[in-house]
């Protein structure tokens, strides 16, 4: 018997109906086969593969030497950096690191931000992962977290009050981003339901709100927040600038969120509404138990997209004089000592935003996989 018949039996070797499942013939699966199929399938693709490998090699080695090998980590100024080596001058980041994280928050109170940051993960855990230990009890903490975080960050309840003028850097980005994200989802859901509602007045109000907010650039809304809002309020009433910015950012994100969720609502088959109605569920029960869980699931990519957009849009507060992480790092470019280090500074900010946004994006993929319940009809 030849070796070929050992793996692939001749036709008719088995009785009809008794053919077992066999392993595929050798050489049709595995990494070598993959390379053959994808990288070296023809002379042209072999040439292209080799050229690409060369390009990647040059980019990685030159970037690597600028980023890492020739880089300087500690120095007092740009000149000092250049005197030591020719690569990136990370010393600017090192010397400004605390500023970029905490802004102008008083040194003595920074432990409060650290604590709030650590507690943030404790609070997010049970919300994001349903296999979190003691999830039900931890959920109560998650609900209380915004209040706890408020007092930790702003002060009060025996903690030294810290003026919001001193907020800046990563902490300001997180305050605006996270507040916007947590508030815009519920408001967006209500707006979407309102716009989808059968009540004409409700529908009109929600539609007008959404269209107005969506039709105006965020920067314009921020200017309204910083300059004009006080004219509209009765004299003597004054809101903190940061608070006004938070409201505007939340409104802006809510309008987008509402449209994303409305898309999800519209993708729901009519039969789901009818089945819920036929069972005697009330409107809110039907929405909460049947419609929204499914509509939100379809909307996850759009929702996360809006979250990421909102998170990055927080950098616009620079325009009205709030220094978020980008703003505060840009300000160091104006420092004569570090003048001209734009590459390092912007790269650092880019990496910060990339890590946060990439994490959100991966989480949304995880969530989509987890919520997949067989084929939807």
């Amino acid at each position, binding site marked *: 018997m030849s070796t070929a018949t050992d793996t692939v039996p001749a036709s008719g070797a088995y009785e009809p109906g008794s053919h077992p499942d066999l392993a595929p013939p050798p050489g049709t699966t595995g990494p070598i086969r993959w390379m053959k199929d994808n990288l070296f399938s023809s002379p042209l693709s072999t040439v292209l593969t080799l050229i690409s490998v060369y390009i990647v090699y040059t980019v990685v080695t030159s970037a690597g030497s600028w980023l890492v090998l020739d880089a300087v980590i500690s120095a007092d100024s740009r000149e000092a950096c250049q005197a030591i080596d020719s690569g990136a001058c990370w010393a600017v980041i090192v010397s400004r690191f605390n500023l970029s994280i905490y802004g102008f928050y008083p040194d003595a109170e920074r432990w409060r931000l650290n604590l709030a940051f650590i507690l943030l993960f404790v609070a997010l855990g049970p919300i994001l992962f349903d296999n979190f230990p003691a999830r039900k009890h931890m959920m109560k903490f998650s609900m209380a977290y915004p209040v706890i975080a408020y007092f930790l960050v702003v002060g009060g309840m025996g903690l030294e009050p810290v003026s919001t003028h001193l907020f800046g850097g990563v902490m300001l980005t997180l305050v605006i981003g996270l507040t916007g994200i947590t508030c815009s989802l519920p408001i967006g859901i209500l707006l979407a339901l309102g716009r989808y509602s059968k009540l004409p007045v409700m529908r009109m109000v929600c539609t007008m709100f959404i269209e107005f907010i969506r039709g105006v650039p965020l920067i314009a809304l921020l200017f309204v927040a910083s300059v004009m809002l006080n004219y509209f309020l009765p004299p003597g009433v004054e809101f903190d600038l940061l608070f006004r910015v938070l409201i505007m950012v939340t409104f802006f994100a809510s309008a987008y969120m509402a449209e994303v969720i409305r898309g999800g609502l519209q993708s729901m088959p009519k039969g789901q509404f009818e089945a819920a109605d036929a069972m005697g*569920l009330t409107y809110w029960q039907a929405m909460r138990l049947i419609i929204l869980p499914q509509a939100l699931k379809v909307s996850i990519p759009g929702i996360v997209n809006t979250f990421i957009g909102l998170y990055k849009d927080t950098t616009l507060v620079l325009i009205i004089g709030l220094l978020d992480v980008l703003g505060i790092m840009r300000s160091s470019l104006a420092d004569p000592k570090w003048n001209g280090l734009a590459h390092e500074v912007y790269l650092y900010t880019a990496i910060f935003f990339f890590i946060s946004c990439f994490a959100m994006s991966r989480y949304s993929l995880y969530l989509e996989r987890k919520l997949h319940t067989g084929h939807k009809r």
Partner: protein
Amino acid sequence: MNEQAATKDISDEIAVQINGMHKWYGDFHVLKDINLTVNAGERLVICGPSGSGKSTLIRCINRLEEHQQGDIIVDGIELTDDLKHIDAVRREVGMCFQHFNLFPHLSVLENCTLAPIWVRKTPKKEAEETAMEFLEKVKIPDQANKFPGQLSGGQQQRVAIARSLCMKPRIMLFDEPTSALDPEMISEVLDVMIDLAETGMTMLCVTHEMGFARKVAHRVIFMDQGEIIEQNEPEEFFHNPQSDRTKLFLSQILDH
């Protein structure tokens, strides 16, 4: 002999009463002067060509569709704009749809317990026991923890029937329950419906399954262009149709 056995379980109590009911979709007059009385325990099969308004008629009974003129009284409650009346009627009327309309994000068991828990305020454990009982009756207790998307069409429709029964309804509406099924699955659903008929449930079925109509119906109603053209006992209806339209319809669905 079939009739005698059948007429015995019909009571004098009126389950559904429809008087002079009209319905329009915009300008289109879908239902014209419908008068219909269904007694408790009676089983009705409604048939007719597509677009004749038969689905719309039974959907008016639990107010999935609104009627513009005439009265509909279900289980003693008149259907008006009053949400309380509508909710009260919907609690007592179960419905099965052509496309099942199971909730894809909930397991089979959760599909069955949802309404009893939220509408009837039944404790979860009791609702689950009832649900298992009915899943047993439709012969799929072993699928209780699967999601609807993992079941075949016939199984999904049986779950949908069990889901309606979990509310312990007094009236069951079936809107073409077998029309979306592959041929080999139709009989498993019809068997479940026949079992249900034997329990004395008041049933209104829109269906083209004439074998089913012969077997369980007390009365067959033929509709065309929004009107009830003819109604009769199954034997009479099939063997001695009165109007030409009925004859034409029957020849189209029976002769092949």
